[in-house]
């Protein structure tokens, strides 16, 4: 393995895993919240929120990356505040890569969760209500477990997207080996040099293998969930 994957490639793999896992994990709660809002809410700004969530899908990734830079950069509105008050710097850090990946995968995650939430039989939630469960308890004990397949689907989409995202990432946090150079950034770099195809292919295979593993795990999880509901 050491011979087959150079140290840079191994750094990139490690980083990609970290970034993808962080991006997916950190998106879960906000994703669920927004999916619930979109699936259930009836409020004035609903369409706007919906559009906003879809934006990273619609915009060319480079544009998204540029917008991230403007907003979350050290001199950006939010980024400046984060840096000054929380000491949290995103630009040129792996955390920024995770943010970029989270945002790129967000519309996918939200949509999967939302579809599941819309599929929940509200009569079950009503029943839970009559048994004394308040809205939060109903959500945690009834809605959420029923929505789990959608949560898993959303997570795997977000994770896979994070494994493949580079346009926004490289634009926002650049391509610093060991810090922000994720697998796709590394692959991109190799494709840019004559003769780099072999290395690009190797990294691509690694990336595919990781994603496949995640996919298989998610399928197994989903299947066991389904089996429980089935009988």
């Amino acid at each position, binding site marked *: 393995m050491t011979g087959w994957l150079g140290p840079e490639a191994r750094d990139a793999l490690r980083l990609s895993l970290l970034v993808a896992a962080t991006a997916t994990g950190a998106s879960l709660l906000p994703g669920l919240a927004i999916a619930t809002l979109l699936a259930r809410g009836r409020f004035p700004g609903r369409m706007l929120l919906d559009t906003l969530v879809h934006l990273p899908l619609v915009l060319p990734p480079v544009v998204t990356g540029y917008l991230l830079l403007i907003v979350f950069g050290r001199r950006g509105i939010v980024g400046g505040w984060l840096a000054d008050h929380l000491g949290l710097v995103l630009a040129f850090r792996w955390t920024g890569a995770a943010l970029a990946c989270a945002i790129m995968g967000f519309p996918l995650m939200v949509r999967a969760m939302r579809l599941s939430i819309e599929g929940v039989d509200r009569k079950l939630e009503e029943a839970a*209500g*009559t*048994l004394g469960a308040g809205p939060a308890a109903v959500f945690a004990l009834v809605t959420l477990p029923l929505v789990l397949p959608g949560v898993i689907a959303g997570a795997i989409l977000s994770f896979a997207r994070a494994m493949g995202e580079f346009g926004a990432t490289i634009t926002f946090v650049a391509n610093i080996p060991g810090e922000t150079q994720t697998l796709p950034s590394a692959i991109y770099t190799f494709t840019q040099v004559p003769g780099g195809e072999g290395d690009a292919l190797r990294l691509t295979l690694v990336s595919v293998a990781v994603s496949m593993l995640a996919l298989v795990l998610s399928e197994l999880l989903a299947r066991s969930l389904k089996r429980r509901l089935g009988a």
Partner: protein
Amino acid sequence: MSALSVAVAHRLGAFALDVAFEAPAGVTALFGRSGSGKTTLVNVIAGLLQPREGRVAVGGHLLLDTAGSVAVPRHRRRVGTVFQEGRLFPHLTVRQNLLFGRWFAPRGEPGAEVGAVVEMLGIGPLLGRRPAGLSGGEKQRVAIGRALLAKPRLLLMDEPLSALDDDRKAEILPYIERLRDRAGVPIVYVSHSVAEVARLADTLVVLDAGRVAAAGPAGEVLSRLNVAPLSGARESGAVLEARVAAHDDDFALTTLVTGAGALRVPRVAAPLGTTLRIQIPARDVMLSRDAPRHTSALNVLPATVAEIRPIDAAGATADLRLACGDAVILARITRLSLAEMGLVPGAAVFALVKSVALDPARPPARGGR
């Protein structure tokens, strides 16, 4: 103060619900044809449907008052509901379904005991399973248990026993009766079965096309003849208060004293002195002008014909109100018998009541009635 006070006006498409009634503690039966609005009313009481106008109060608690902008959210109403379609949580085991309400019920308050409920419903072997594999009747039993165990302040039951066989019903009904009598939980009970209603209900509310066709004490409403067409002609009958006066262990009989006289019925497992409610279905009362002898009818009550009302002038039968002691009982006989026996108001007759036709209102007489 009435235990339950309901006034609701609401529209659903072409259907208009406009209902108001008051009920004392005990079981209030909602009775009416398919589509008459029973489930809609249940939904309003449970807080699942916000009516255009309405006021609902249970015991001292005001749950809904559209005029005063009161609408207690459903999870604070503590109205345990058995839904017409089960609504079990598919991701939870039967045990978890049963205990769901426990999490939210006040710790201190007494409530139904899990073991007893499980036993009574016969769902012990199902506890570890999930609802998907349960039979129709099993689901319904779990749903009943789930509502019972939530320590409700009011129990709403929408046709809870319709998928169950008679034996199972015979085990569950007394439990509901005990709940009513001991725990003092008022119950709203939706049913199509006059037998069930007669047995359980203290108050009867008959709905017809979204309106109250009749409401009041169950005995009174059931005895009123014109309820019959609405409630299913077969089952009308008189409901009487009865006191347990004697037990006969040899023949497993109990003697009940009623306003209409003493009646012997299959043994009732209630202590002497207990007061029960019984129904005498009109079609189980036979009339005779002579005092009958050597018959299998244990109960022969002298009576006077008070009123004769053909249900349907072209039909085969007529309903008679009979003054019998302090009480009124009903009898349904053919018009031919009426003519042959020459019965007119004021005529003296003997009412033969088959003991097995009685419906005691507390633990069931196993093996027939």
